[in-house]
């Protein structure tokens, strides 16, 4: 259970003090969803209080991730013991590799770095159409581009029109619209399917 401390204040103090205990979470959970369970300050529309970064990892130095933004921006993410990391499932900085893509949300630090409360590595959420179904992979059409979706035993689940998540993929059909939440594999440009929402 999370101790009753403010997550954003904790992140800032952890980053300033250099208390980067990689692989453990003093806030009690590595699941990014936990980052949003704490009280969140209401965001004034005129003031964007949350720092955000996206791009690909170019270098990993200890607990610092150097990230090249897709628009040319450069970011340094200082991972702290309050950072939740997702890569297919909740994980640690050890799972992050150079070349991975990511989105990160956190707190701007005075030195120009970002102390993230959540980092989502290689995460994608794609609207696709099923073009073929195999035992361990599903062929998808995304924006008229072919995309291979890898079925991960024990991980991949489907939801049929808002029903409960199930590992049973037998209800999928060719031509069906699906939303695929998963993790991109930079090595072969495929996607590991975590959750698949089946539509009409």
């Amino acid at each position, binding site marked *: 259970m999370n101790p009753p401390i403010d997550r954003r204040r904790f992140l800032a103090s952890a980053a300033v003090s250099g208390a980067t205990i990689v692989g453990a979470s003093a806030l009690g959970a590595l699941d*990014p969803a936990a980052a949003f369970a704490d009280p969140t300050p209401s965001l004034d529309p005129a003031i964007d209080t949350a720092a955000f970064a*996206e791009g690909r990892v170019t270098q990993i130095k200890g607990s610092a991730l150097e990230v090249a933004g*897709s628009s040319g921006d450069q970011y340094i993410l200082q991972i702290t013991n309050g950072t939740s990391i997702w890569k297919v499932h909740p994980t640690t900085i050890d799972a992050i590799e150079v070349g991975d893509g990511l*989105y990160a949300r956190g707190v701007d630090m005075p030195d120009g770095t970002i102390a993230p409360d959540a980092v989502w590595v290689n*995460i994608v959420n794609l*609207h696709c159409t099923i073009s073929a179904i195999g035992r361990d992979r599903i062929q998808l059409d995304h924006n008229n581009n072919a995309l291979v979706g890898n079925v991960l035993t024990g991980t991949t689940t489907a939801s049929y029109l*808002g029903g409960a998540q199930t590992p049973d993929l037998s209800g999928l059909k060719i031509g069906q619209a699906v939303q695929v939440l998963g993790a991109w594999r930079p090595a072969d440009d495929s996607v590991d399917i975590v959750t698949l*929402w089946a539509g*009409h």
Partner: protein
Amino acid sequence: MACSTTYLWRGETTWFCCGPAWGPCGSAGGGACGGCRSDSNHAAWPNASAACWDVTRPDLCGENMPRRGCGFVLRVRHQCTNAVVCPAIRDCGPRTQSFCGELTCCNGVCRSNRILDLTPKAFSAIGSLSAGKLPVWIYN
């Protein structure tokens, strides 16, 4: 008037990528309005234009939300945490008709039908990207 507290609609929001991007998102483009970016507070609305409506067809799910065009700023509130973000409409979507009847719930209260798409920056301001979709109330 925009991003005020006047009720507009409620339902599910998902998230999508647009603009400069990595991986499969690289093919997404800048959205129907142009200038859509994953690292900005942007959104897609099913009734951003008449042409947009013809694609998304939310009416087939019983959702007849009003027209809100490119650049209009919405106020989006997570149904349970009350976290708020104010994204500007930069794209057409989601394709509501493909997921009629779908539910997303929190604290035992559910919202139905996909009526909004948020960029990663906007979605992550009110929830976790790994959740995929959230129940929200929308104001204008």
